[in-house]
């Protein structure tokens, strides 16, 4: 029993330390933003653009394919279950509720975690182990501003773009599935979607991009930058970053859903 309590205590302590260090990393990065008005802005912008290219642009084909299929699957399931109830009129509502509100942001975030979160954690862990992070410090370059901040910006911007792209392709997939089973005209399909969208749905797209993108960059960069001396810690850092990001986005999404829609 004593061992159990001690184990629990040490885990809580480790969790609090991690939370404190992550909060410190975020605070340092936010405090380094004013310095971007100086000569560092060009370098940071260049790294951020590279991150957007890798995290957002290169993820478009995969995101588009998944979104198209999911949009189609949601509509096919609805047609199968609700045939005879005028599902054509509900297709837009279903897509908005299932995809725009929940699946779109979550799946886009999972894609970013899988493709870029692991890369961020492994890249920063390798840089730390090779002495590159210390090297930046000794040149007077702030590693938080040069390494973390552009990845944070890149993750948020990319996720926003991917979420919008996901919603568009899911709508297209939904219409393709609807077209296979019914003769619903595109105009009425689009009208049903636009009629179902509420202002808060639109406001939540950038809000979730900031929340999820921030969590992904923070978790993965923190894990990458916290490695010790051994190369075996690189895959561990990537795994821990992914797990932490996944837990973070699902918990945050649940809280947002309860706060906004309940």
């Amino acid at each position: 029993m004593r061992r159990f309590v001690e184990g629990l205590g040490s885990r809580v302590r480790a969790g609090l330390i991690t939370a404190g260090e992550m909060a410190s990393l975020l605070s340092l990065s936010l405090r380094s933003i004013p310095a971007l008005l100086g000569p560092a802005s060009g370098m940071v912008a260049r790294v951020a653009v590279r991150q957007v290219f890798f995290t957002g642009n290169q993820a478009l084909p995969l995101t588009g394919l998944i979104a198209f299929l999911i949009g189609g699957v949601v509509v096919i399931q609805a047609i199968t279950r609700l045939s005879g109830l005028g599902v054509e009129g509900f297709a837009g509502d279903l897509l908005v509720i299932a995809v725009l509100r929940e699946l779109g942001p979550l799946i886009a975030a999972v894609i970013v975690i899988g493709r870029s979160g692991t890369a961020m954690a492994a890249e920063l862990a390798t840089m730390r182990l090779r002495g590159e992070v210390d090297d930046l410090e000794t040149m007077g370059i702030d590693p938080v501003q040069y390494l973390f901040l552009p990845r944070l910006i890149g993750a948020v911007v990319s996720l926003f773009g991917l979420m919008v792209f996901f919603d568009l392709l899911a709508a297209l997939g939904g219409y393709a599935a609807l077209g296979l089973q019914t003769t619903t005209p595109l105009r009425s399909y689009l009208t049903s979607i636009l009629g179902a969208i509420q202002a808060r749905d639109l406001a939540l797209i950038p809000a979730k991009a900031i929340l999820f993108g921030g969590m992904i960059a923070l978790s993965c960069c923190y894990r990458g930058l916290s490695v010790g001396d051994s190369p075996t810690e690189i895959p561990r850092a990537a795994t821990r970053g992914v797990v932490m990001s996944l837990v973070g986005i699902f918990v945050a999404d649940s809280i947002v859903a309860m706060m906004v829609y309940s």
Partner: protein
Amino acid sequence: MDPLAVGPGEMVVLTGPAGCGKSHLLRVAAGLARDDDRRVTVGGHDLGGMSHRTRRRAVAAMKLLYLSQEAPLVSNLTVLENLLLPIRYLGERSDGEAIEEALGLMSSAGIGWAEEEPPARLSNEDRKTAALLRGFLRRPVAAILDDPLSGLEGSRLAAVLPLVRAALGKGSCAILAAASELKEFTGLPAREAPLPPRRIRTATLEDRG
């Protein structure tokens, strides 16, 4: 060990057997490690005792050059971008002038071919050369160099030595280096400071009995 002072235009080389603490002393000087027994100041600053932010400002103001034995370069930049990184980031000089000088140095050091290559394509010798060029391109006021010339030969060495000599010649740069022997610095006005093997202060071996 006696107090050691390195003034502008001077080069002092810490020598001693492997494991005597040369690299550690240099890391302390660069503010990357702490040593309760030794106090090392660079430009009047005890870098190890500063916060990260204050240290970065002091290091940038001094244009301090620290080169570890591994001589790392930022792996996701090209070699030319690496050479220009601190100058661009800290806005030390105009980009055009820095690019021209960097390309000239790379060419004379025999690594001009690596301009657009990532550091992973470089041999250890080329990487170390590039790291030295990056450091001296900034025209540093103080330099801390850990075994900077070992493994450098031919055009690499021929390109690096004049840079070190020029930095010393202007009387603006103080260099503290470490090497196993002083003869690696033949041709440079270097003064030797032998570092004695690290003395064991306390050691305790206890058994359970």
